[in-house]
């Protein structure tokens, strides 16, 4: 049996539960997932603007200082995708932290590289999955393209003795599957084991989402101490059988229902969940509540992988300008409606050139739009929220400027925030394509300082 735990579900995740599970979890492996679909493209843009940006998870130091002393002490190995666009730099930084602060200069830190396809994407892929059109239909600037590598190169780094493996883009479940392949010597074509292992990885990759996070709903889904959720721990046997649990002194819940919610999270066809390593079939799963906060997961199965890897392509598509202001009291909604009318006229007067403009009333139907039941009800408070997507920063700036104009040139009782910054952000659109796995050559680098 090996014991793995999640150390993060995304870049912005809480850090203290990772330290807690590293210290008290008696772990063999602690695994960090820190990348969203647009992480690589955003990092590429940041690197271009700020040459000092090291190219890896901006919370890398904080996360490693939180867990490394415990991991070193307990012999827990780390697998992490915090390398983003420079896994070698991330590995060096971890090696340096271990040597400088935790008296562990011998820690073996490996980087897995080889997912970047930015310079040759048009040579190796042809169709955009979302549109069915050729890559050449992307007229905006491609800022990044990277393939989702599988677990095998990570497992190989573990085979070579790595205590810490840092990657760039890999599939999220691969971060968890790799230790199982390494420890249990699972064959790269034992599809049922890889399916079960990938399924376990999918259950863990979103951290607290399986232990009561993204879950509480008063009266229906009540969760103890939801301010103190523990990160999930998995005890995995060589045959793939798995028990999910969490530290006893943490909040949250893990039961059949939290497991099912996470099992289907971001899944389309549950019998054919495509990854680099295997096609997972969740429909065969057996989920058994063994005890409070102890759930057994067995028999997730697998089929041969497709041989194609998913590629995310980041494209600079323009800018979004966004701001909001507020009304309350009798007539609040009417004033909000008038504010919408004024802004629409103002954007015409200042000749706003937008790909799309949205002005909506928060508290009425801003989130669910046309499906909102009975929008005739009169709310006591409303927010007016304005957003425009534009080709240029100059046009996007008009949103904040016109909302500022609503302060003294607007209507009665306009509640406005103190203006902060430009209220503009860059849009990096993400598109997908497929590439043959033979186009990628992952490499393992053991770093020194």
């Amino acid at each position, binding site marked *: 049996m090996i014991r793995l735990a999640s150390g993060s579900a995304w870049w912005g995740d809480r850090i203290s539960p990772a330290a807690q599970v590293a210290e008290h979890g008696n772990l063999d492996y602690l695994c960090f997932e820190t990348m969203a679909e647009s992480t690589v493209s955003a990092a590429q843009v940041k690197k271009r603007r700020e040459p000092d940006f090291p190219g890896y998870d901006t919370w890398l130091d904080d996360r490693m200082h939180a867990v490394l002393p415990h991991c070193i002490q307990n012999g827990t190995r780390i697998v992490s995708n915090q390398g983003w666009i420079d896994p070698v730099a991330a590995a060096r930084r971890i090696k340096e932290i271990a040597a400088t602060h935790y008296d562990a200069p011998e820690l073996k830190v490996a980087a897995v590289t080889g997912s970047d396809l930015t310079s040759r994407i048009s040579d190796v892929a042809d169709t955009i999955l979302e549109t069915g059109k050729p890559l050449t239909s992307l007229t905006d600037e491609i800022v990044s393209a990277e393939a989702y590598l599988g677990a095998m190169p990570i497992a190989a780094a573990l085979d070579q003795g790595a205590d810490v493996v840092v990657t760039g883009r890999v599939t999220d479940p691969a971060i968890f599957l790799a230790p199982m392949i390494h420890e249990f010597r699972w064959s790269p074509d034992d599809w049922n084991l890889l399916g079960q292992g990938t399924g376990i990885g999918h259950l863990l990759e979103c951290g607290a989402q399986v232990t009561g996070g993204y879950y509480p709903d008063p009266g229906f889904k009540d969760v103890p101490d939801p301010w103190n959720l523990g990160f999930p721990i998995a005890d995995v046997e060589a045959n793939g059988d798995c028990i999910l649990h969490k530290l006893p002194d943490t909040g949250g819940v893990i039961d059949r229902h939290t497991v099912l919610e996470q099992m289907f999270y971001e899944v389309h066809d549950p019998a054919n969940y495509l990854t680099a390593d295997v096609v997972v079939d969740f*429909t065969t799963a057996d989920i058994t509540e063994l005890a409070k906060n102890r759930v057994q997961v067995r028999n997730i199965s697998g089929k041969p992988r497709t041989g194609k890897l998913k590629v995310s392509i980041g494209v600079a598509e323009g800018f979004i300008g966004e701001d909001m202001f507020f009304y309350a009291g009798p007539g609040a909604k009417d004033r909000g409606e008038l504010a919408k009318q004024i802004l629409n006229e103002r954007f015409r007067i200042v000749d706003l050139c937008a790909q*799309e403009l949205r002005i909506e009333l928060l508290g009425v139907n801003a989130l669910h739009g046309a499906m909102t039941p009975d929008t005739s009800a009169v709310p006591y408070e409303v927010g007016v929220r304005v957003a425009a997507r534009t080709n240029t920063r100059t046009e996007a700036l008009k949103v904040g400027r016109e909302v500022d104009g609503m302060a003294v040139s607007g209507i009665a009782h306009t509640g406005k925030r103190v203006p902060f910054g430009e209220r503009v952000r860059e849009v990096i659109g993400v598109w997908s394509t497929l590439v043959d796995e033979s186009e990628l050559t992952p490499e393992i680098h053991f770093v020194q300082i």
Partner: protein
Amino acid sequence: MPDVELRHLAHTRSGDKGNTSNIAVIAWHEDLFDVIEASLTATAFAGHYDGVVTGKVTRYEVPRLGVLNFVAEGALGGGVSRSLSLDQYGKTLAAGILNFKIHVPETLIDKLRNYS
């Protein structure tokens, strides 16, 4: 047979991939799955989200786990990265189906969650 909101029969979670949202509907009790499956067809789901989901809706059924998984294309304002929605990931979308009404036979009333 009373009309009961789906939230007493099932719980839901949304996930995002590009401009597609998946909404899993998970029965609170295995005995409730059949009535959910019979009522909440892909067509009924698409009708409920009319004006919000702009593309095709596909329903996957997993009876042995008590789950219906709806995959709604064109649900995220062009995609998470470029959407002008405040809820760019569509995390609130799964809550939108919780008020869908289902005829529940009297024999199943005691299987409902938080219902009186």
